């Protein structure tokens, strides 16, 4: 499936759009980690919670559960909320 990477994480992937596999959101994130070591912990904490200011959208719908089932043609957008200064 296609995954859109936010600019703060492009230092890991070197591109904005990447391919990843997985039957759940959690599996997809583990595949991203396999391809781009270190990227998962910047988005997901050690308790498997999506970090504050990070948002994950599946086909345009916001999702917080890593158990969310995915289909190969789903489109994933990882978005960083703009805040701070």
């Amino acid at each position, binding site marked *: 499936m296609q995954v859109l990477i936010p600019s703060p994480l492009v230092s890991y992937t070197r591109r904005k759009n990447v391919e990843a596999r997985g039957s759940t959101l959690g599996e997809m994130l583990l595949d991203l980690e396999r391809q781009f070591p270190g990227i998962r912990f910047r*988005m997901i904490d*050690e308790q498997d919670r999506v970090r504050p200011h990070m948002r994950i959208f599946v086909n345009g719908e916001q999702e917080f559960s890593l158990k969310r089932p995915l289909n190969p043609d789903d489109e994933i957008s990882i978005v960083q909320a703009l*805040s701070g200064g």
Partner: protein
Amino acid sequence: MTMKKAAKKAAPRSKGVAVLVSTRKGAWIYASDSSRRKWAVNGPHFLGHTVHHMVLDLRDGKTLLAAASTGHLGPTIFRSTDFGKSWKEARKPPAFPKVSEGENGRSVKHTFWLTPCHANEPDAWYAGTSPQGLFRSNDGGVTWEPLPGVNDNTTMRPWFGTEQDGTPDGPKLHSIIVDPRDRNHLYFGMSGGGVHESLDQGKTWTPLIDGMEVVEGFGFDIANPMFHDPHCVRMCPSNPDRLYQQNHCGIYRIDRPAKKWTRIGRAMPKSVGDVGFPMVVHPRDENTCWVFPMDGSGVWPRTSPDGKPAVFVTRNGGKTWQRQDKGMPREQAWWTVKRQAMCADSRDPVGLYFGNTQGELWMSRDEGKKWECIARNLPHIYALETAEI
């Protein structure tokens, strides 16, 4: 505890001094010539990252670790084995163990403090985090493991308090100190949560808070570590039995094996007080240390008292203090110097350095008699460390 005093060492001769500057928006390395009069800047490293601490491994003289996060991404540790020419991210940054589903597990917000372990433990490091946690790496910072003696300590847990009890940027474990005579002998401080000592390399810990005061007027139990807020604790290199502490409630000294701190800040001028963040000890003289007082009155502005920044030094273990402000602004300078943002080099005379929240880097080549600003317009400075290069 039977320990011999560490041998006094002569001041080193080297090419220059490096000042490692950690800021809210990245890290920089300032390197001097041998006279410490000319400075070259290298950076930014990790531009946009909040760098809480960047430390050189003095055991090999080239490995740097930097604790970094951003306002949005999770925390990590960057590692360089060529003094900052290239960096690689830790494969397993500090993280608490995952708890069972339904339990409320903790997560590391950022690593706040880095300390190399004992000289006889090459590649081993300790890390203190926010919220309070203690971690160890045995492979030069590539992978980190939680230390259950602190992180799973059910006695200590209430002393951590909650996010609401901690400093505005989160409660922290800091001031990790390794006794140079005994790798099993450790100290650390928690804001809040007191000062603690271990004699078995961190397996068990004992509070070391007797003599420390707490904020008056609320009926707090002074024997409860939860109410104690050490800001910075330092061990004297020339006498590891002597520790100095800058606390939320004053300046203290302890001479082990005594177990009671003495509030040496009572001798500070009343108009200045003895509240502050950093504590700096002389590399060869156990009777000399420096502090940077801040305003702890009213709503606690935490700026230089009366807008007149100054370092204060004691040369007699805290019996008397002298103001050192030559070269600094005389008025309307509302600085804050954070707990990690002041340090010394090991030259003779000792060079002193501090960075303020306005992004200015200041130094003194003569142990505080005169000060000059060597860099301006950096981001808010969080931490400084020095290294001979």
